[in-house]
């Protein structure tokens, strides 16, 4: 046990003297949280929609007034009147406007005759986000337009009432669980990957190997010291990230304690995984080379930035085994829903099981000789 502590002590003393690398590992995810959170999180505004009115009838004017009301209030889009449809379509293709709304010549006649009047939206679907925002707003706009002035006494239409059980969650808050996991991952990558292999290449491990330390003591020492540093990164991200993302009551002691449990389980799982990946590596370039790939392969399928339900089958397989998936899920429950530990017990169990399995595999593969 003393030998395990000696390894941990050495690592933590070095960390205290030159913490630059670990601080960098915390700064990168925080920057990502702020930039991605605000880049993706905002509502889409001021899209440009060309309106070609080929009808000029009273129902068409009513429709255009409703568009202008949106432009003036919600500002999802601004309308630009066109007289020539061909010019409007050319501007759409050139990217000057995001969509063209066409009111055909017989719109008013059909509307007054109750003959299913139609309007057309020609949209730039290379930008899915803007296109769906435009579609959504126009769909909503047509509901009041279609409302009869004297509604029937008994309506056969079914309606959907939506009940939101949690307060509105801005995207930056949705992103925070993933950011905490990312900070733990980066710390594991630097501590358990880059620094570990650099030490090995510099001959530092040779110093350990000539002492009577046992294989398991060495592995436990490396893993625990890496996990402690990852926990520090995780705790810093939990507090700073909560403040930046505007999580209500960020210093709730009970929730922080529950988060610490998930931070520790995540740190152990990720550092053990990293150690398993690095156990036979001796070239310092390897951890640097796989850093980006590993980050992409594990972070994006975890559901940190987009719901996992949308993934193709092969990616769902990664999602199912990826420890980050369970970590992200755990933090989402605790941060966004303020649940108890029972709600995340499966996540914690998976992370600890994953850590035990990878550490066992690393112990088998670890060579106590050069």
């Amino acid at each position: 046990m003393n030998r395990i502590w000696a390894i941990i002590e050495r690592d933590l003393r070095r960390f205290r003297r030159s913490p630059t690398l670990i601080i960098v590992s915390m700064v990168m995810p925080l920057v990502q949280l702020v930039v991605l959170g605000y880049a993706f999180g905002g509502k889409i505004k001021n899209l440009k929609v060309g309106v070609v009115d080929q009808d000029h009838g009273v129902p068409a004017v009513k429709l255009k007034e409703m568009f202008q009301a949106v432009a003036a209030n919600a500002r999802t889009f601004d309308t630009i009147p066109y007289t020539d449809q061909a010019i409007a379509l050319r501007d759409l293709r050139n990217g000057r406007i995001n969509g063209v709304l066409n009111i055909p010549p017989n719109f008013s006649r059909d509307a007054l005759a109750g003959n299913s009047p139609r309007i057309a939206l020609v949209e730039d679907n290379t930008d899915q986000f803007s296109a769906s925002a435009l579609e959504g707003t126009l769909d909503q706009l047509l509901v009041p337009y279609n409302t009869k002035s004297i509604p029937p006494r008994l309506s056969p239409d079914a309606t959907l009432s939506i009940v939101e059980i949690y307060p509105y969650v801005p995207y930056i808050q949705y992103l925070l669980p993933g950011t905490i996991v990312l900070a733990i991952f980066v710390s594991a990558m630097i501590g358990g990957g880059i620094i570990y292999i650099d030490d090995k290449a510099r001959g530092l491990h040779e110093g350990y190997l000539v002492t009577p330390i046992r294989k398991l003591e060495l592995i436990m020492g490396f893993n625990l010291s890496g996990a402690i540093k990852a926990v520090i990164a995780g705790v810093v991200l939990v507090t700073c990230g909560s403040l930046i993302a505007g999580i209500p009551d960020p210093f709730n002691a009970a929730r922080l304690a529950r988060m610490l449990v998930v931070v520790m389980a995540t740190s152990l799982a990720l550092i053990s995984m990293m150690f398993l990946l690095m156990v036979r590596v001796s070239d310092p370039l390897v951890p640097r080379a796989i850093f980006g790939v590993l980050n992409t392969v594990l972070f994006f399928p975890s559901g940190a930035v987009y719901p996992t339900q949308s993934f193709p089958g092969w990616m769902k397989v990664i999602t199912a085994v990826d420890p980050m998936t369970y970590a992200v899920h755990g933090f989402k429950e605790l941060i966004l829903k303020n649940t108890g530990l029972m709600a995340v017990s499966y996540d914690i169990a998976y992370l600890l099981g994953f850590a035990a399995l990878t550490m066992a595999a690393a112990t088998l593969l670890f060579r106590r000789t050069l």
Partner: protein
Amino acid sequence: MADVEVESLTKRFGDFCAVDALTFTVEHGEIFGLLGPNGAGKSTLIRMLTTLVPPTSGTARIFGFDIVRDANSVRQSIGVIPQAMTSDLDLSAEENMSIFAKLYGIPRDKRRRTIRELLKAVDLEQWIDKPVKMFSGGMRRRLEIARGLVHEPKIFFLDEPTTGLDPVSRVAVWDMLARLKQERDLTILVTTHYMDEADKLCDRIAIVDHGKFVALDSPLKLKASIPGKNILEVSFSEIPPGWEDVLKRLPDVAEVKGEDHVFRISSNNGPRTTIELLEAARKAGVTVASLSVQSTTLDDVFVHYTGHQLRDALQSAPGYSSEFMYDRK
């Protein structure tokens, strides 16, 4: 029982044989030097003896403990200074030593006392709290030597401890090793390619080449084993035909090797050969451009046994008498 007993120890990396069936012993209290060019197999041998590399075949015992079956007992009883400087730059001298004392399981009360004693022994007492990044190369090496002794081993393995150090630091490290050996009753096994150091400090030297010992004896006997007691290096401005034969006929000359106008003459009586050489040159009207006379050094032994000349000379070397010598045939 010798401190180190090695029997047919071999290490192969694929088809390459790094250490080829070595057999030797190191007695208690000896400083045993392994001298050889880079890639000769010195480090691989030390790494096998210190349990870092498993041997392909053969056995070795340190204090009777087998290096494979009893590896942990071997580790507990040896001190090792690897070739690379492995002290932590961010940690202080005391912290570096304390971590290793803990790895060796030294109890807390003894730890502090031993560390202070050792740092004093290597003249680093006043640097005890300073981070190692402030240390020079020589100071770091001294700290590592102290670190290797923290569990009071009786045998000490050092792999090129002075490589990369300036001449002053090299002398300091060797002086310190000699002193520590006396004070702590150590057996030392050391690799080096500095022959002057090996000459001064080692009780016995093994010359290693291609994974084999080409010679093993005390420095004195090794020097006596090669032709001549003195080496004359002489260059002439111009030489008449048959001049090399004239040189070979000079009194006490054991061997002459020449290239262009420069000759290397092994002589059993340097001063006499020198006088006769100058006289012969005067008579023949040959101008001596430069001349130096020196005693045989380990450099000459080294070149003799490992250089290209060696391969020719080994076949017919006179005075090849030591019982520890190994023929490379």
